[in-house]
């Protein structure tokens, strides 16, 4: 698995890929709010999640991971959820 910083960079690039033009100049930190500050509505977040599945070759349906949109508020939340998904996928592969 990638080191933590490589992993975070990858996830951040997926977030950046989803940000609408109008919000492109927003500086992104861990506390940046996905909806309020980056303009990501629920469909944009779903697009981002699917890009994550593609890049990390994970099918959330197969690992039975439900994305809780209510918990995805900030960039840190997205990073945390991404790690949880990878861990769940990893433990299933080992099992």
């Amino acid at each position, binding site marked *: 698995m990638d080191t933590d910083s490589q992993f975070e960079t990858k996830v951040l690039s997926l977030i*950046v*890929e*989803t*940000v*609408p*033009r*109008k*919000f*492109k*100049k*927003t500086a992104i930190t861990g506390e940046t709010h996905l*909806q*309020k*500050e980056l*303009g990501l*509505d*629920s*469909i*944009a977040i*779903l*697009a981002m*999640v*699917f890009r994550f*599945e593609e890049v990390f070759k994970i*099918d*959330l*349906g197969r690992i039975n991971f*439900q*994305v809780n949109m*209510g918990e995805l508020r900030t960039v840190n939340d997205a990073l945390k959820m991404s790690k949880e998904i990878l861990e769940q996928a990893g433990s299933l592969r080992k099992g």
Partner: protein
Amino acid sequence: MNSFTQAISPRHNDCLLLFLPISNFQQRMTYYSAFWWGFDLIVTDPNHLFRALKELRPTLLIAPPALYEALESRFDNLPPGKRWMAEMAADIALAIPIRSVRERIARFLFRSIYDALGGRMRFMVTGMAPIKRSTLSLCRRMQLPLFETYGLVEFGSVSLNLPGANRIGSVGHLLPGVRLEFASDGEIIVHRKDTQARSYFECAPGESERTFIGDNSVATGDIGRIDQDGYLYLVVRKKEIIITGGGEKVHPEAIEAELDACIEVARSVVFSSQESPTLIAVVLPKNPQGGAAVQERIQRFVNDINQRHRSMNVGQVVFTDQAFTCENGFLRPNLKLDRKRIAQHFQYTIVSNTAASKAHKWSA
């Protein structure tokens, strides 16, 4: 149902993807259409929308503007050189008279977007909310078949843009069987032999009679116009028109579009109040933590707008850090602004702040 489905000329090998609740009339109607006409139907949970698009490869899609805008964002965030090259080449390709050649070039230039949609899409419809002009233009550039439609739950589908009869900014020609006229204030009145509903269930007194005006006619509540070629344009919701103290009718969406043009504004909503002689704008800055400096710059931008439109003066700007979402009730389930609720909420904030300020002055 028949007029809408016939307009898109369903084929035996078509496959329609739906992901919104079928309480939405258009979703339900096209659900039935698939059974009636015998084409395939994919019904997916929104969480699996993008995987279904890519892997199940539908040919027909009905979705709100947010989905197409997400695709636009993806293209916008390509490296600038790559994006610029694709745009330039696509613009040159637009001049090629043979459609199949144009499409082949577009598929090559915008492969990631075509892949994201499964690569077989032949008809995409959007409605429910206004779509950004830039999204429509990009889809045209990419040779993606995106068409705006207009309909309402009280009546059914009214109009649809179609290949060969598509004008960006309009909601298309009237569907077969629909007649339309304008009331004296510009409100669109639609008629059809068989309407979708007869009245509202458990509504406020008089509400049904104001909408279902008899003779299979429905007063849409939308102000519109029709051009000389028969394309219908929606201007504003009638109920959303603000009448100023000077008796002037103001379309809030027009002012909001000007406010939203400020690079520091994420979203604005304009309303009027009996307590205020001028209009009130609720503004969500892109950087709500930016503090007084950001607010001052936005206020200067508002002042400039006021200079240009003396009759529609935004006298008060309320800054908020709350996005307008379904969760906080500022958007309706159909993703349209609930202006009444927004006005009530922020009116209360203004009154509370004013009272606090008066109390402060008194205690001082």
